[in-house]
């Protein structure tokens, strides 16, 4: 997907984050959300390897071997940050103290089921923090391309890939659509400025309930 489409997803998600929230960003598109979080809102990023207050990547020559992000890259910590061990970090996640987790996905379905850690028959990289994050965070936001590299819908009726967590997804944001997972099903609340409801439906494998007041982003 083109960079501007990835940035569009990140930008829309950033608008969703309330003041003073604690947010964990996965790798890929979720990481781009940092570009759009305005200062002064009191939003702090949680890094599951052991701190709250993840800052910008460390400048070359300024790397601290004791401070890395969840991808293992040299990181910084903002004023007001705090450090802890992995047990505390996952207590924060699993205990419902994390406001938002922004994750990528391979598939999401009508029930809010999420599949994002493995494709059977291919290499299993592992689970990392994905299962705990999707089960524990108060809000689970999926940031992903609307369709796969092969043009197939990633929002489907029923996930065919092994689940990361059942019924935990709250929001799905793609370059085409802003979709909320509800008890009634997936509600299409907003579409991108350069698409139509028909195009979104055509590229979605799940039933979409189109909101009465459809927004644009």
């Amino acid at each position, binding site marked *: 997907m083109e960079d501007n489409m990835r940035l569009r997803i990140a930008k829309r998600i950033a608008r969703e984050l309330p003041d003073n929230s604690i947010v964990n960003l996965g790798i890929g598109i979720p990481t781009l959300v940092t570009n759009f979080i305005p200062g002064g809102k009191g939003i702090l990023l949680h890094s599951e390897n052991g701190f709250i207050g993840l800052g910008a990547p460390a400048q070359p020559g300024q790397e601290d071997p004791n401070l890395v992000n969840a991808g293992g890259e040299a990181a910084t910590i903002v004023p007001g940050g705090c450090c802890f061990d992995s047990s505390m970090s996952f207590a924060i996640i699993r205990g419902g103290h994390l406001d938002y987790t922004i994750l990528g996905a391979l598939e999401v379905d009508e029930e809010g089921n999420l599949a994002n850690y493995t494709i059977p028959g291919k290499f*299993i990289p*592992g689970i990392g*923090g994905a299962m705990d994050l999707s089960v524990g965070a108060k809000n689970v936001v999926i940031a992903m391309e609307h369709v796969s590299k092969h043009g197939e819908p990633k929002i489907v009726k029923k996930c065919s890939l092994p689940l990361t967590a059942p019924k935990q997804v709250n929001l799905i944001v793609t370059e085409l659509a802003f979709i909320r997972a509800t008890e009634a099903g997936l509600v299409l609340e907003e579409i991108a400025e350069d698409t139509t409801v028909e195009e979104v439906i055509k590229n979605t494998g799940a039933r979409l309930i189109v909101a009465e007041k459809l927004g644009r982003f």
Partner: protein
Amino acid sequence: MKPIKTPQQAIENMRDGCSIMVGGFISCGRPLAVLDAIYEKGLKNLTIISNDTSKEETGIIKLVMAGRVSRFIGSYIGMNRIMGEKLKSGEVKIELVPQGTFVERIRAAGAGLGGVLTPTGLGTAIAEGKEVLTVDGKKYLLEKPLKADFAVVKANRADKYGNGFSAGSSKNFNVAMAMAADHVIMEAEEIVEPGGLDPEKVTFPCVFIHTLVPVAKPVKGGK
């Protein structure tokens, strides 16, 4: 006071077939000097319990490449293609665990608990063959404690009683692992006299640590 040893002396009692917890997250807080000594000693048929296998071909990966690891328990192996090959060939038995469950199973073992009840993994492949318990109407997966014969952990600074301090994100799995093994070896970049460590800033209480190994500070700017 705890004995201060070289990496080679610290692993004198390690034998083929033992289980070893290794602290660290990717390259952060990794006890590489003791891992090198394990490699040099030629120990084999090892069970390695570590969150990940890191990116570089050092430490755990070096042992894996030499065919010394028969079993690996952790949460992520995707950073290094070597583990993918070993998983495929079946040469290393690999058990993948959600990261939060991984650390809490270790902490449970160290804290004398009979396991962990977690919602993580319910309704997924992780739950297969495991007991599901209902507490106050909510379902949880029973995950059993995880312990080892040895744990190798890393601190920035330690005192001679074995109290340790770890900065930033280098605490990671080191803290729980220090609680959950029969013998705990702590690498420290600096070893000070009792009183040289602020008791309010102790990451590892001395009670968990058996052996101290002084090591060099990592070079700044390294990965």
